[in-house]
């Protein structure tokens, strides 16, 4: 009987048995990486808006407070998207004829809202409330990133559940004193660990990890 297989088959068999483990591990790694990549989470991806609104200009260069536009962030679950009226408060005087702002004026004339593209959209099965987070000392930039540096707005974090739990399991690592919640580029003067633990105690912050806290 002639030889069935070429002698190289021996090497091939050994490599395939040995390599199978790495292959399976690699496939798993690729899948888990894709799940966390910005391709899936959209983190760090700039969304195109009807008007190229710059948070950098308004927040850092002009020093407008977050709450000037996002008015309900302290008392509602939704931070609020400003109505055209808020824009026009300034832009009826400043850059009143700028080509770029024509959609705002059109909205003002017709009464039809500007259709902003939502950057942070949580799934409908998640209950989220801005006001409680603000009251417990979670800074805007803790979740939304350095908004004052965003010429065009992107989502800073993945919004994956593991990201939520990171803070819900260890809030002391992230909280700050209430008076700095709306500050940009804030850094603790003492060690965050010590400060965080003090704040957790002072604000009575609980580690809320029960499923039905968010999935009601």
């Amino acid at each position: 009987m002639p030889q069935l297989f070429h002698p190289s088959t021996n090497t091939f068999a050994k490599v395939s048995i040995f390599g199978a483990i790495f292959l399976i591990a690699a496939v798993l790694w690729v899948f888990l990486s894709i799940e966390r990549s910005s391709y899936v989470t959209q983190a760090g991806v700039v969304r195109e808006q009807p008007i190229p609104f710059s948070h950098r200009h308004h927040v850092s260069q002009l020093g407008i407070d977050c709450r000037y536009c996002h008015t309900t962030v302290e008392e509602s679950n939704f931070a609020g998207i400003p109505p055209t009226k808020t824009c026009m408060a300034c832009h009826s005087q400043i850059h009143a004829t700028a080509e770029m702002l024509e959609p705002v004026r059109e909205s003002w004339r017709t009464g039809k809202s500007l259709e902003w593209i939502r950057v942070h959209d949580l799934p409908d099965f998640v209950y989220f409330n801005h006001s409680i987070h603000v009251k417990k000392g979670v800074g805007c930039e803790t979740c939304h990133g350095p908004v004052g540096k965003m010429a065009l707005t992107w989502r800073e974090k993945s919004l994956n559940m593991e990201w939520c739990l990171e803070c819900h399991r260890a809030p002391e690592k992230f909280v700050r004193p209430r008076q700095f919640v709306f500050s940009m580029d804030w850094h603790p003067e003492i060690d965050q660990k010590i400060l965080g633990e003090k704040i957790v105690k002072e604000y009575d912050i609980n580690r809320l990890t029960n499923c039905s806290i968010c999935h009601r």
Partner: protein
Amino acid sequence: MAEEKDKTKTESPFIEPGHTYGSITDKISSMILTRKTPLGWFIGFGIAFSLMMVLLFSITYLFMKGTGIWGLNIPVGWGFAIINFVWWIGIGHAGTLISAILLLFRQEWRTSINRFAEAMTLFAVAAAGIFPLIHMGRPWLFYWLMPYPNTMNLWPQFRSPLVWDVFAVSTYALVSLLFWYTGLVPDFGSLRDRAKNKFAQKAYGILSMGWRGSAIHWHRYETAYLLLAGLATPLVISVHTIVSFDFAMAIIPGWHATIFPPYFVAGAVYAGFAMVLTLIIPLRKVYGLQDFITIRHLRNMAKVMLATGLIVAYGYMMEAFTAWYSGSEYEQFMILNRMRGPYAPVFWALIICNVVVPQFLWFERFQSKVGALFAIAIVVNIGMWLERFIIVVTSLHRDFLPSSWGMYAGTFWDWSIYFGSIGLFFTLMFIFLRIMPAISIFEMRTLVKGSKKKIEN
């Protein structure tokens, strides 16, 4: 006693006289390579394959519509899917018992049935594995059962027996597969050398992983096989113990009982041997294997069935006794409801199938009559399914609160998926018979007088 010992000696042997190494290899390999496939194979495969198509169709419809097409509802939230799962997993147990435990106990008679029983185990586990998956509301998220670093930072609930099940059953499937495959390697080598066409040579060549039958190959093979047997032995006990925890960890009357693990394990072996007999009796007839699978094999299996059947009967008795002795009115009601409630006919059918009918196996006349044995095996198969039906349904349908009582019955789709899973099982079985040696060739050779193993013993 002395008389009986003598009798065993004169009893028919494990292999009919006159066989040589060559004749064994010829006979078993001819089933695959040279002999014309018997008509019975085509008929059987045709029926099984059609049933498997019914399964595919039913599951497709299930995935389109959801589990609402089944008879499930509150209070009976566990219906056919769990019944069938436990039934199939139980059937698998005989394979592991025969291949691992009987090997360690040096029971030579396992030789001619172990390969077949191991294959049966694998296919039964495959059929069982479908049910927990399709029982999920969102089957496409089945991988949530496995612990992996997901983006939700969530792990399965390790305190739940359902999660233990995932590990128990997957380990079982994996070890059974390895055990089966390891045992097949030397035989694949024989088939490779005997195959005439190029494709078969290549296929068996790859499967035999370069087996040349050298002394060092045999040495490694024996070590590996023994180690795997050791690994598989605790699984015989653990798998069905954990399956029984699915029930016993709950507080439902009729489930919350410490007798469940041993009672389930015995039931599993009982069902498994019944299934081996159900399959092997027609097989030896169609392929003319009476000289390999002798009356003595059938008798031995009948005895195992009788013994495990008695343990199961003891389990039923203890269930009733514990209910009475506990003084718990819910437990007592549960037993009375089984015996006299709306499902009483099913319960009594179960007692007849699993307790009464197998008592015929006490008599040699029934042990060695192939037809009677086949009939009893079928009855036990049915009985074991009814047992799981009784456990699942009667405990749930009337629990603590009469206001939440209800009735349960399988719908058309419940039955179609059940019968379909039988189709899947038999399809795999027929394919196995066609392309792999159903009886271990090289182990049969050790039964020939004068072979190495004989002298050793």
